[in-house]
């Protein structure tokens, strides 16, 4: 009979919740108790440096294009020896959803996610991080990549001496 099975169903439910009342809670008592997030946890974003200490970010705007909530803005500029870098670079953490798409899009491995999730501020404007606050002194998770050693435009080494480059051709040479 349906009514009996209905009552049985209700009773089963009540029994399950009854049992759960005596389970150990899974709650962690933050902030006294803290969980150590995994290294690939996606929280506060940083801009890293290449192994030679230069800023990795070339302000290519791929991260800002990838960002689904449009919280990254920047202005690129040309530095000495033609290095492209971010004149200013800001991430609005009050909008960021920590999806990690920016880090995935970054061709220079500059923008990386860190496990530091504790970024509360009293004033929402303080959640707009500028480049000074984002840039760290280190390579982050990829210790040995330097984009400019592979890009063909010189900057960190004379043209034609990069990792995958032949010396510049002599246009006026007559050799075949």
């Amino acid at each position, binding site marked *: 009979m349906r009514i009996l099975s209905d009552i049985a169903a*209700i009773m089963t*439910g*009540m029994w*399950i*919740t*009854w049992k*759960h*009342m*005596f*389970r*150990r*809670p*899974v*709650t962690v*008592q933050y902030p006294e108790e803290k969980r150590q997030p995994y290294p690939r946890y996606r929280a506060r974003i940083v801009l890293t440096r290449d192994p030679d200490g230069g800023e990795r970010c070339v302000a290519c705007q791929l991260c800002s294009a990838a960002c689904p909530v449009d919280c990254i803005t920047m202005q690129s500029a040309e530095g000495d020896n033609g290095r492209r870098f971010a004149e200013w670079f800001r991430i609005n953490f009050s909008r960021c959803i920590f999806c990690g798409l920016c880090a995935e899009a970054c061709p220079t491995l500059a923008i990386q996610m860190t496990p530091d999730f504790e970024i509360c501020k009293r004033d929402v404007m303080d959640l707009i991080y500028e480049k000074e606050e984002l840039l760290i002194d280190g390579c982050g998770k990829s210790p040995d990549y330097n984009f400019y050693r592979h890009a063909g435009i010189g900057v960190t080494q004379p043209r034609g001496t990069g990792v995958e480059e032949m010396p510049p051709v002599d246009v006026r040479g007559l050799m075949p």
Partner: protein
Amino acid sequence: MIYDPIDIALILTKIALVFFVILTLAAYLVFAERKVLAWIQDRKGPNRVGPFGLLQPLADLIKLLTKEDFRPIGADKWLFYLAPAMAAVPAIMIFAVIPFGAPLVLFGHTVQLQVSDLNVGLLLFMALSSIAVYGVALGGWASNSKYALLGSIRGLAQLISYELSMGLSLVPVVMLARSFRLSDIVDAQSGCWFIVYQPLAFMIFLISIAAECKRIPFDLPEAEGELVAGFHTEYSGMRFGLFFVGEYINIVVLGGLAATFFLGGWHGPFLPPVVWFAGKVLAFAFLFIWMRGTLPRLRYDQLMHFGWKILTPLALLNILATGWWLVLRG
């Protein structure tokens, strides 16, 4: 009638006591509800304010009192202000007729542990519980908000669906006790609780009071998943607090009534009567919380269907059966 000053003092003391106990109980029921729900969900629940979070109700009170008292544009000012009181006051008034312990003898006076031993106590309860729904209806109407209005419409529709079966489920109780007076009903159960004679009426009454307190699975007027917060969507601060606390007073009061009608009121072996009564009330409160942690919300039409097509006929049949049985027994 001329009253003895000691009588008057006793009555006032009883009123003050009832107020204090009921309000504290309601506040701690909120806390208990949060705790029990947390346990059910493998959480810890409030545990920050005071030892084990015991001062949480106080913190909540302070928070509610200091919150902005907000009134939506276009709301009907006076009705909007009145509605929360309309919801809370009738609930607490019902307690006036509930006997919560065996009569005491103090200063040569026999003190009924009951604020007022009215001879139509049961009818008073029916009347006041119907008035309480005005709080819901007017609050939703006066808010000038779609969600609130929908919530209050549901509240009214729900009322007419369960009030009838609730009333009918009490008729056999009256038939058995041969009185509308609650103390008589309790006395009639000194031997055997009515739940033994009337399990069906008890179930119908239980379901009906769950609907009366707007508890899951019958919390359609609030239905936060669908209507934000139903009839009290637009309320804030202590006005919201009144609605909220009214609901828990309702639980206490209706728990007390269920105990009175079916579980022998304050009767029980070994322990003092007041403790028996309190234990029964708390058991009902726990049952409600447990239900909330387990059951999903019914649909609007399901509740009406259930009230009209199942509970009401069942209650009527039950009355017939009781009458037949009484006649047979003589």
